């Protein structure tokens, strides 16, 4: 059955309509967990300083794809990846690439807020310290403040910098994680369902934040909420059963999708 599906998908291989020079360019990405194939020849380009959202039913491979972009799948022993992912024209799976350096250029925000069990300050200062970018104490304070301001958290917690990051509320923790990610000035921020553990008010704040951040960063967001995809992203990619079904401007995907499956999904009849 897998074989027949596989064939089907290969013949349906989708190419997106995209600007000539995307920041992230993925060609024929296949991902296997052991014998099980999780992604089938995904070709997707992601534009600079835009929000691209990945939607699709659970288990469709959107998170797997997202994790390919900063090589987080490397830590899973059974996971193997073929194909080519280029960022700034550079193949990130090239053996000469330093994964640590790569990840310092690509921030990631997870589904569940995961601040370190350290103070708020240390959480934000972690990245710059780790990469030895900032040594002076005053510079570090400035950097922490700047990151927290950009994450919209400064006014709420400027008096609580020494409290553990885990003592904040869920929404604040997630924004702290965003502040931690942007403290190392990444080019790209990957977000894996960043609002799924949050209440609507915290979600609204994060969405607002994403909207502001896109002026400076390229953002790829995985989301289960189609409204969220519609609200925050400029482009949307729909995944189903491990393959990319359709990608395009968010407006087009939601108003007039080309593919039947996409239409069924975005109108809520399916998935």
């Amino acid at each position: 059955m897998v074989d027949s599906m596989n064939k089907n998908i290969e013949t349906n291989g989708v190419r997106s309509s995209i600007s000539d020079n995307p920041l992230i360019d993925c060609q024929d990405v296949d991902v296997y967990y052991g014998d099980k194939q999780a992604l089938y020849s995904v070709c997707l380009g992601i534009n600079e300083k835009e929000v691209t959202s990945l939607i699709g039913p659970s288990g469709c491979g959107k998170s797997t794809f997202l994790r390919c972009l900063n090589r987080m799948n490397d830590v899973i022993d059974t996971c193997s990846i073929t194909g080519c992912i280029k960022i700034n024209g550079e193949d990130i799976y090239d053996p000469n690439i330093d994964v640590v350096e790569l990840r310092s250029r690509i921030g990631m925000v997870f589904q569940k807020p995961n601040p370190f069990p350290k103070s708020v300050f240390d959480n934000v200062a972690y990245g710059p310290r780790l990469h030895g970018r900032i040594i002076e104490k005053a510079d570090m304070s400035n950097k922490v403040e700047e990151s927290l301001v950009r994450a919209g958290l400064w006014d709420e917690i400027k008096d609580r910098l020494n409290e553990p990051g885990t003592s904040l509320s869920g929404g604040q923790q997630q924004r702290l994680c965003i502040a931690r990610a942007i403290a190392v000035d990444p080019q790209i921020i990957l977000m894996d369902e960043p609002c799924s553990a949050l209440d609507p008010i915290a979600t609204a704040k994060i969405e607002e934040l994403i909207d502001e951040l896109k002026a400076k960063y390229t953002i790829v967001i995985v989301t289960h909420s189609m409204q969220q995809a519609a609200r925050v992203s400029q482009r949307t990619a729909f995944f189903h059963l491990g393959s990319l079904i359709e990608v395009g401007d968010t407006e087009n995907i939601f108003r007039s999708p080309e593919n039947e499956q996409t239409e069924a999904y975005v109108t809520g009849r399916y998935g």
Partner: protein
Amino acid sequence: MNKTIRQLTLKRQFAEKRFKFYGQASLFLALIMLVVIISSMTYRSIPAFTNYGLNLNINLSQNNIDKDNINYRRLIRENIFLLDSGCEDRKCRREFSRLFSSGAAYELKDSLENDPSLLKKDFRKFILFSDDADLFYKFGIDKNLPENERRLSDREISWLSDFQEAGLVEKRFSTNFFTNGDSREPEIAGVLGAVVGSLYTILITLIISFPIGVLSAIYLESFAKKNRLTDFIEVNINNLAAVPSIVFGLLGLALFINFFGMPRSAPLVGGCVLSLMTLPVIIIATRASLQAVPPSIREAALAMGASEMQVVFQHLFPAALPGILTGTIIGLARAFGESAPLLLIGMVAFVVDIPGSVTDPATALPVQVYLWADSPERAFVAKTSAATLVLIFLLIVINLAAVILRKKYQLKW
């Protein structure tokens, strides 16, 4: 309400109550047993903490003593017979001097060496009775027994009663027990040698097994590829944890002493043997606590660009530290109470001196308990219980340290 649902609810509530009762009952039983053990030990050890002795006049002002060649034994004997023994013959004199501890000569030597001015003075010195005399004052004696079946003859009993009537007998807290090494004479035998031996042994065990155990656990957990080899190693580590401790003693004898030629009876070898025993415990505990760290922390650190090693030492290890320490200390506490493997590597030897280094001959506390329990002198019964109490006390201290360290390093999530 539906009748069957109501019945079910009642049944469930009853089951819950019954289960709670079982739990409380077993807890209560466990506590009772603990109380019985500790209190019977304490009760039986009480005699070991006191000694009867006699304030003896030592007259040195008349004698002209050669400083470099003092016969302390003779000095004691001469002064003992200033007491009223009423002895005419040699046999009687021997019997009389046997009432006093043979350790008295060593104590006199110590005080004269500490304070040489005493050599020209008359002074009073507290000298201990021998164990039989000591037991007479503590428990009395059954005079209905025929004389030749008693430890003390009628004559000795009358001497001891005379001392008591003359008010010469004094009961003192037995500091000997805490400051001396082992001895054939129960009244001067102490646990310090065994305690020091045990502490040296445990120190060696800690130094060897903690770094090796923690590092191998970290490697297996975070770096090693999952394949047949690591599976095999894992199974074997778990097996090692279940191997009877005496087997490690045999291994230590063959490997450390016979092959590597390390000294017999030394805490160094004891520590090595006990590390073999403690290693699997530490490895298993460390792996379990590393696994218990939420994976989200690892992901967060990796995504921030931390290398695998930075993830381990900046995040996983600190978060797992309380669990690692608990596991280590439980392993060490087990090693601390272990006697069987130490018997095989010669730490069962009769050692009088307090060991000064890890290569000196020594015994360990549990072995000391075994040695004393095996001794024929009745006074060692109380000593055995007292040594056991010391062992339990030290174990409580170690476990308390575990609790405190765990509290201290506990991270808040």
